[in-house]
């Protein structure tokens, strides 16, 4: 009996294996982006930077990167502002229809993205709007707002509404209370929301694919390159940069979220 692993041991082994499999595909792209071979295969041949160097003078790729940056920053700011409205209403007010209203705002999370994308496409074309980065931003806002709301609701739940009341009782205007009490208390959650929504916009493909017209974002550019087998190593290099950027942004977002949590824990 002693040689049989305990259930606890089995469970830990399973969890470690599970996490390893989760990470495996993600770590694969960076590994092969440094491999000196035109196709990603084993065994690894040699270490090279040439696939990254190949990106340096690539104007189309840099244009796409610029587009992604522009879309991401706009989507992050606007969706965080919309997210603040929704999160505030959800946490601070009790009203009839709240469930339905917040359900509708969160719905893009569980709708097939292709359906959101083609519905938007039909409406945009029907209205005579030219497909552009603007239409991509409109689409990205739909899927960024729910994530922003999730991050911000926990921020709003963390601080005591009586602080706002106290500020108002002491003669501060509503705008003054917002600027000097609410926003500073929420700052870590707001930063976290900005970073999370920027990351989502940076990664988002389907909406951008349908709505971007002639101005590709980075994922749409990558999709275009996949048609050419010879470009795959460059795509792996670009993908690795994107993964690294997403992970850095996400880690910073998580640190800010934790800071917000600690702030709450200090409250008497």
């Amino acid at each position, binding site marked *: 009996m002693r040689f049989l692993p305990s259930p606890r041991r089995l469970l830990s082994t399973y969890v470690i294996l599970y996490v390893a499999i989760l990470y495996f*595909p993600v770590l*694969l792209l960076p590994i092969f982006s440094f491999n000196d071979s035109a196709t990603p295969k084993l065994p690894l041949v040699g270490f090279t930077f040439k696939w990254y160097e190949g990106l340096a003078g690539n104007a189309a790729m840099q244009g796409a990167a610029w587009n992604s940056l522009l879309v991401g920053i706009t989507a992050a700011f606007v969706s965080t502002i919309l997210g603040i*409205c929704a999160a505030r209403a959800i946490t601070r*007010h009790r009203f009839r229809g709240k469930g339905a209203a917040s359900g509708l705002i969160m719905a893009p999370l569980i709708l097939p993205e292709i*359906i959101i994308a083609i519905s938007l496409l039909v409406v945009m074309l029907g209205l005579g709007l030219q497909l552009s980065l603007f239409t991509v931003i409109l689409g990205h806002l739909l899927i960024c*707002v729910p994530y922003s709301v999730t991050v911000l609701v926990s921020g709003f739940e963390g601080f005591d509404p009586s602080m706002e009341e106290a500020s108002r009782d002491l003669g501060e205007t509503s705008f003054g209370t917002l600027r000097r009490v609410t926003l500073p208390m929420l700052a870590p959650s707001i930063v976290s929301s900005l970073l999370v929504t920027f990351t989502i916009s940076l990664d988002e493909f389907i909406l951008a694919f349908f709505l971007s017209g002639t101005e590709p974002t980075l994922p749409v550019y990558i999709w275009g390159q996949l048609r050419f087998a010879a470009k795959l190593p460059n795509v792996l290099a670009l993908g690795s940069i994107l993964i690294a950027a997403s992970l850095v942004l996400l880690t910073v977002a998580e640190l800010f979220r934790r800071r917000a949590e600690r702030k709450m824990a200090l409250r008497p």
Partner: protein
Amino acid sequence: MCPDIACCTPPGQARLSRFLRTETGKGWLTISPPLLYAMLLLIGPIIVIVANSFWSQDYLTIDHTFTLKNYQAALTEPIYRDLLMRSLFVSVTVAVVTVILAYPVAWFVSFHGGRYKGLWLFIITVPFWSGYLLRILSWKVILGYKGVLNTGLLYLGVITEPLSTLIYNVNAVIITLAHSWAAFAILPLFVSLEKLDRSLLEAAADLGDGPVRRFLRITLPLTMPGIIAALMIVMIPTVGDYVTPKLVGGKDGVMIANAIQVQFGKASNWPLGAALAVSTMVIVSIVAGALVLLLAGLKRLLK
């Protein structure tokens, strides 16, 4: 309370401003910007798509007379019917597999995570942030004919010839999707396990129930809401996945989203594309509802 507003403004406006000072009014006012956005860019477009699905394409113009022939085509023509069935099969399988594989992990984090619960959840969700397109691309790199798995196994001498059955079929689609959606299943499962009252398990143990009975009669029924949420969160979006079938599905792995895209692109038959999209949404909702009822019944049976 404020007579000056009532006398200086028209009655309708006064009523509005009074409404806006009630709790309900404040709530609606605060939530209105994101809500209006969702109505205009989500509900509006979906209504337009539903309308489109009842029209028909007449060469380059759209004929606005009501017709059901798009639905007839979507539900009876073998190619679309098969694609719909395959997409449903894939999404249900992916949801079930993902939840079964994720449950022990959520259990581990909730029961043995201690003070590192937050860190564990962070570690588990990180791969999800690596990017939708890139995650699928790495599975193509792994499963490809000259991919990492085949070349690795050849190198190790396990196989003498590359396996051609790894990629470009339904299995590859299921594996890729199950990997992509793992984090979405773990979070709701974890939340429901956290809510579970541990003293119930202790009481059952004191009364002589073994671990299996405790799991079946307490943990499983009480975490059923989390299981249902996890299944829905994975199943509903995966049914319309476009990139995975395109990159690793091959001819046998094509799904409904690819057919919808063709109708809005090359084939340029918007009404048929719209009918396919609406049918997909309706059918997946019906299957989701049936699944919820089934699990609710199972829960009652276990208790």
